[in-house]
């Protein structure tokens, strides 16, 4: 073999695991504090940040438990800094009380959930069975979290940055719902500098920064004396959530015009489905893909539009669960598509579909 010298690569993409990309994005977005407890399959995020946060002279604490970590997030957020925690399903369950308090106190924070199989300790394989928990609040009380679902490393990186902006803009927790596949995936992506989503973010004049020269701020979730206390607070939250529903619905569509079948999937499942769809379309069929990128708010208007344009299309929901996002699809399409035309393919237990199994399922649907 001829002698080889190292040459400078023209391609500036970097290579990382999904869990590490999330960590680097947090650094770039100015995350000042990170508190977490290790759990497979998300441990690369605390591992990565244990080095990087120190290099950047920021705060990294491996808490004694998930419950402690989320309450540290509560405190740091109340002090007005950008803060993040991460975990996987059982750990996120432990954090729910804290998330409810943070949502009630209208504080911004970012929570990464690298979903694994459940219930209970379940297993360590990829899963999407935390959809209900993420999109329906998860803890007690009438609250929501913005939920973003990346399906590649570029989105892990970009959406984590977006999550900090959205959290500050709306003053609420934002969840990145990744899974065991996306978190462990190694893939190149462009590591661009932080790009703010908003020209200007609201000032954090509510933060507990010491009250010299001003009235003390109070961060609280206890509102006694109904109806003027808690009822008003919940109505205020409701208004905020309705505003977000009208402003923030992200989705990706692929090949949906005049499609016979529209597959609906998010996260890792959407990529597996897309492989199968391309294989079918090479044989002359017309299959489309609808991928929600925000799980809450769910992109209902966008899916309804597609259903109205494709009157005879069938809809196939694919999830790594026994049917959770399926309920959002049914609610969205109940006035537009007959229920018999909304089909489901999925399993629980840390199972992932394969391009072949999705291909066969689509074939079955085409025959009906």
């Amino acid at each position: 073999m001829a002698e080889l010298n190292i040459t400078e690569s023209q391609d500036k993409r970097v290579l990382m695991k999904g869990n590490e990309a999330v960590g680097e994005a947090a650094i770039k977005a100015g995350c000042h504090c990170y508190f977490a407890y290790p759990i497979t399959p998300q441990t690369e995020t605390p591992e990565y940040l244990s080095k990087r946060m120190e290099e950047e002279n920021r705060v990294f604490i491996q808490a004694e438990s998930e419950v402690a970590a989320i309450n540290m997030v509560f405190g740091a957020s109340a002090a007005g800094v950008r803060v993040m925690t991460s975990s996987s399903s059982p750990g996120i369950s432990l954090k729910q009380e804290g998330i409810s308090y943070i949502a009630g106190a209208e504080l911004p924070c970012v929570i990464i959930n690298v979903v694994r199989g459940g219930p209970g300790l379940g297993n360590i394989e990829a899963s999407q069975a935390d959809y209900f928990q993420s999109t329906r609040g998860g803890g007690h009380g009438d609250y929501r979290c913005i939920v973003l679902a990346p399906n590649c490393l570029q989105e892990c990186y970009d959406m984590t940055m977006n999550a900090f902006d959205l959290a500050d803009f709306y003053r609420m927790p934002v969840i990145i719902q990744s899974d065991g596949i996306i978190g462990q995936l190694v893939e190149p992506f462009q590591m661009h500098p932080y790009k703010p989503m908003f020209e200007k973010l609201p000032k954090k004049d509510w933060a507990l920064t010491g009250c010299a020269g001003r009235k003390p701020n109070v961060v609280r979730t206890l509102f006694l004396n109904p109806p003027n206390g808690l009822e008003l607070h919940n109505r205020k939250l409701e208004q905020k959530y309705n505003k977000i529903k009208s402003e923030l619905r992200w989705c990706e569509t692929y090949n949906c015009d005049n499609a016979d079948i529209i597959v609906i999937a998010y996260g890792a499942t959407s990529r597996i489905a897309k492989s199968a769809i391309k294989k079918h379309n090479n044989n002359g069929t017309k299959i489309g893909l609808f991928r929600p990128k925000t799980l809450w708010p769910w992109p209902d208007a966008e899916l309804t539009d597609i259903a109205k344009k494709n009157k005879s299309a069938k809809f196939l929901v694919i999830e790594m669960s026994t049917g959770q996002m399926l309920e959002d699809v049914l609610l969205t399409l109940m006035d537009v598509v007959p229920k018999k035309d909304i089909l489901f393919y999925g399993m629980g237990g840390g199972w992932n579909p394969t391009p072949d199994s999705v291909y066969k399922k689509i074939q079955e649907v085409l025959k009906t």
Partner: protein
Amino acid sequence: MPITEINMLIAGFGGQGVILAGNVLAYACIDAGKNVCAMASYGAEVRGGTAKALISISDYEIDSPIIERPNLAMIMNAPSYIKYIDTLEPGSPVIVNSSLIDMGKIENKKLDIIGIDATNFAIRMGNIRVANVIMLGAMIKKTNILEPQSVVNGMKRAFYKGKKGLYYINESAFTIGYDLV
């Protein structure tokens, strides 16, 4: 190699550098301007148990990160050979570590198998851990999926994170593997 999308399996026991070989290859793909996507086994793994990395390489967008039937493989030990050999597409090139896998017992006629005495060469080089890169060199020569220059650039990025000395021995290992085929 006349295939548009490479779905590669690298398997061996934990500690043989299976995941690292995957990372070197992924860096090499970035250098070559290709798309790449790698998944390693994770979680309940033990030292000495089987480890595997699955790597998709394509000129096009890579959709599914899940590989069902690899069409190229590098197999570093006998338990991995037994475990994964039947998952490969017929006709796939397979580079096996003949230091640890008895070539006399291999009777698979559906695959294009070559044996590389990688672990023994690595021991002679003074570092048993470079067997993975010797295999990688042989694989690149056998399949031509990437320019050797790209792999060398990839090794620079994979090994330069604070362990520059490792780069030089691995570059030699790559060249030895390349010339073995």
